[in-house]
Every structure is written in C-alpha cells, then in structure tokens.
C-alpha cells in the first residue's frame, strides 16, 4: 500500500559526489549549453562530449549501462524533429514513393541525427547530476543560485507529494477493483460509457482530495509561521576541489566547442 520513492540518487563517496551541489548544477547546465551550441554534424565533438560523460560516470562509479538505459527515454522527444529530413533543402538522398515522391535530403538527415544525439547527450549529463546529488541538495543549490522561490517551492512540494498522490490513486484503483465482481452467466463490467464515467469520477475525486490536502498542508505551514516563502539554511562552502573540478570541466567544454566550430 505504499509506493516507494525510487530516488535516482546513488549514495557513494566519490570525487563527483563530494562536489558542491551548486557547482554540479552549474556544470550540468554549462554542459547542456555546450551541447546545444555545437554545430550540426560535428560528430567529432559529439564523440568528445560522450567521452566526457563516460569519464564523469567512471569517476562517479555509475554503471555505463545504467546511464544508457535511462537515457533512452529521450528518444520519443526527438521524434519532434523527425520531419527534418524531408523539409530541409539540400542534396537529395532518395525519394520515397509516398505522397507523390517525398525527398530525403542529406542535410536534413544530418540535422535530424545531430538533434537525436544532442538530446541524448544532454539527458545523460542530467541523469548523472541526479544520480550523484541528493534531491534536497539540488533544491538547495537552485535556491542558492537565485532561482525564483515559487518555482523551487513547487518542485520541492511536488517531490514530497507526488508519491503520496500516487498512493492515493492506487487506493482508489484498488477500491474499484475490490468491488468489480463478476457473476456467472451475467455480462459484467457495464457499458463503456458507464465505465468511462466511473473513471472520470475517480479522477475528480483524486483532484478534490489533493485540493483538500493542499489546504491542510498550507494550514500546517501557517501553524509553524509560514509567511509566503520557504526558507532554508545555508550549507556547504566551496572548496578548492570544487574550483579545480569546475575549471577543468569549463576548459574541456570550451575546447570542444572551439574545435567543433573551426
């Protein structure tokens, strides 16, 4: 009766785990920025960036397979770019015998593959970030980096209650299952419309329950002095290790970016 929060965080004592959360968040964002700034078709740069990911994963003792498996979720999003081979003008690779001859251009294919690789690379670094940084530390880093407090509050409460809501939904589904009996010889289950109505009411009931819960939570916050802003303690100071790690990473990213641009 309880969904466990499968935190992506893997506890370990490595150089990467020990870095300041702020440094890790900034470096991840810089990495993603570099990935998006590399030109289309710069496959050498992609390989270098991938090597960088693997090096960080190695330092953090993350299984490469774990990383590859988890990053597959990015693929469906890349489908948004699937029209590129057909729409980007350029040298015709082949003509498909549909819609009266659809042409595939070489430039379009390169652009599509590049976007696929770029999103996949970016996601892998993001996965590393949440694997080596506990979620509360990421929240703290975002706060320290002056991300607007309401956004952080939303993420923080979502992290806390997503699975409470999940439990609630599970209870509703279970209650329905427990009363969905069948009887020999009688057609059971009702009409599709009726079942749709039941499901709709369950969703509505879940929304109402969440709404009421949010009021109770707000009351609990008020009772302890909440005045509209979540406060947190400062913790962690930058060490020389953080500075060195950041410098190396920034230097490598700049190098890759420059080489890919010449």
């Amino acid at each position: 009766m309880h969904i466990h929060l499968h935190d992506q965080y893997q506890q370990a004592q490595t150089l990467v785990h020990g870095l300041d959360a702020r440094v890790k968040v900034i470096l991840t964002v810089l990495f993603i920025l570099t990935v998006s700034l590399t030109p289309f078709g710069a496959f050498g740069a992609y390989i270098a960036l991938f090597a960088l990911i693997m090096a960080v994963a190695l330092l953090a003792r993350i299984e490469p397979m774990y990383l590859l498996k988890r990053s597959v979720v990015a693929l469906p999003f890349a489908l948004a770019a699937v029209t590129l081979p057909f729409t980007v003008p350029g040298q015709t690779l082949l003509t498909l015998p549909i819609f009266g001859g659809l042409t595939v251009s070489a430039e379009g294919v390169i652009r599509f593959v590049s976007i696929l690789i770029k999103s996949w690379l970016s996601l892998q670094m993001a996965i590393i970030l949440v694997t080596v940084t506990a979620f509360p530390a990421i929240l703290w880093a975002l706060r320290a980096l002056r991300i607007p407090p309401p956004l952080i509050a939303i993420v923080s409460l979502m992290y806390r209650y997503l699975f409470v809501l999940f439990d609630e939904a599970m209870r509703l589904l279970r209650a329905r299952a427990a009363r969905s009996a069948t009887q020999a010889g009688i057609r059971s289950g009702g009409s599709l419309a009726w079942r749709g109505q039941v499901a709709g009411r369950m969703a509505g009931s879940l929304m109402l329950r969440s709404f009421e819960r949010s009021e109770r939570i707000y009351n609990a916050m008020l009772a302890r002095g909440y005045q509209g802003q979540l406060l947190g303690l400062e913790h962690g100071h930058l060490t020389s290790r953080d500075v060195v790690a950041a410098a190396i990473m920034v230097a490598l990213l700049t190098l890759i970016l420059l080489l890919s641009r010449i």
Partner: protein
Amino acid sequence: MHHKIEVENLEFTYPDGRKALHGVTLIVQPGEKVALVGPNGAGKSTLLLHLNGILRGQGTIRVAHLELAEANLGKIRAAVGLVFQNPDDQLFSPTVFDDVAFGPLHMGLPEATVRARVQSALTAVGMQEYRDRISHHLSIGEKKRIAIATVLSMEPEILVLDEPTAGLDPRARRTLINLLRQLDMTMLVSTHDMRMVAELFERTVIMEDGRIVASGATATLLADPVLLERHGLEMF
C-alpha cells in the same frame, strides 16, 4: 510562565454554512494536561485549529496571555505547537531536518540556534538518526514523532495535538504515550483513545455537537458509564 489557554464563548461556522462551534468556553491552566474527547464531528479539530489562529471564529481566545488577533498571530504561533492528525500533512519538506528546522527558521533564529534546536527536538522524540531521511520513507509511527519534533523545535509553551495515537500499532502507540508523558508543558489533546486518556490526563473535556458537555477530573468522568454512553464514548 504564562502558558494558559482561555477560550470564551467561541462560535464558528464553516463557509458551507455548517455551524461547528456553539459558544465554547474552555480554560486550560498552565502546565495542565487536558484530553478533549467526543464523537467524530463534535468540533474537536475545529476548536484546536482556532488555538493558533488557523481558523478565526467569533469569541475571545487568549493564549499565553496574548489576545488572538492579527497583530499577535506570529507570537501565538510560536507559543502554541499544533500537531495535525495526518503527519503527511505536517511533514511537507524534502527531508526530516528541513521539516524540523522550518518553524525555527521562520521565527528568524540564527543558523546555529536552528541547528541546536533541530538536534534537541529530534533527540526529545528519539529520532536523531533520522535527520537526513526523507519523510515519505518513514513509518506512520516515525512520522508522528517527527511531526511532534517539528513543533518542539519552536520551543512552544503549549502543545496541541489532534488524535496523536490514531492509526498507530501498539508499540508505536506506547512510544508516543511515553513521549507525551515526558513532555513537561501545557497540553490539549483531542483523541478517541480512552485508555490513553485514563493513563495520561488529569482532566478530560467532552465535546458533542460543537459544545462542551462535560469537563472534570478524568477519573470521575470515566467512572460515569451513563455520561459516557450518552455521548457515544466507552471505556475499554
């Protein structure tokens, strides 16, 4: 110490028109531990939510010699530790530490004091090793104790608890009762757990239909089967 609760002629109607409190008058003396019993819907939780100004009805409420008014809300919330029935509502922060630190931080205390208070509050409820845990992963008994720590860290003069033993297994319930016994402060506790009432509270107040229908020494009230039956309560 002025940790006294005075409620005079309190009336409250919910926005949907349901009248929940009909002129409640209640005084809890400094250091007194009082049980608030009565059937579901009697208005117990509604009354408790008034004690630090979450709900605002008509009537006079004085807590720790402070009139309950907009200007005093901050001080009153620091003086009254209110523990909600469902710990999932009370524990809203990412980690146990953050939750226990929430009250002291909002009181504007310096960092070192906040840390010391979190430490001593968690020690008081026997949960020191849980400070970096995530509330979602805890058992309900553990969550209840942390919920109490979240208000102990504010060092309130008065502790108000809504059904602290509801849903606990016997061992967690025993731990909680022992904890409540150790805490030396004014206490008002709403509950259905009559055996805990007999064990822990010198005075009992019975509520029904938004009114206080009986108040007196626990031993006397609980020895009156006619009274208990009339208000839907039973001993053992």
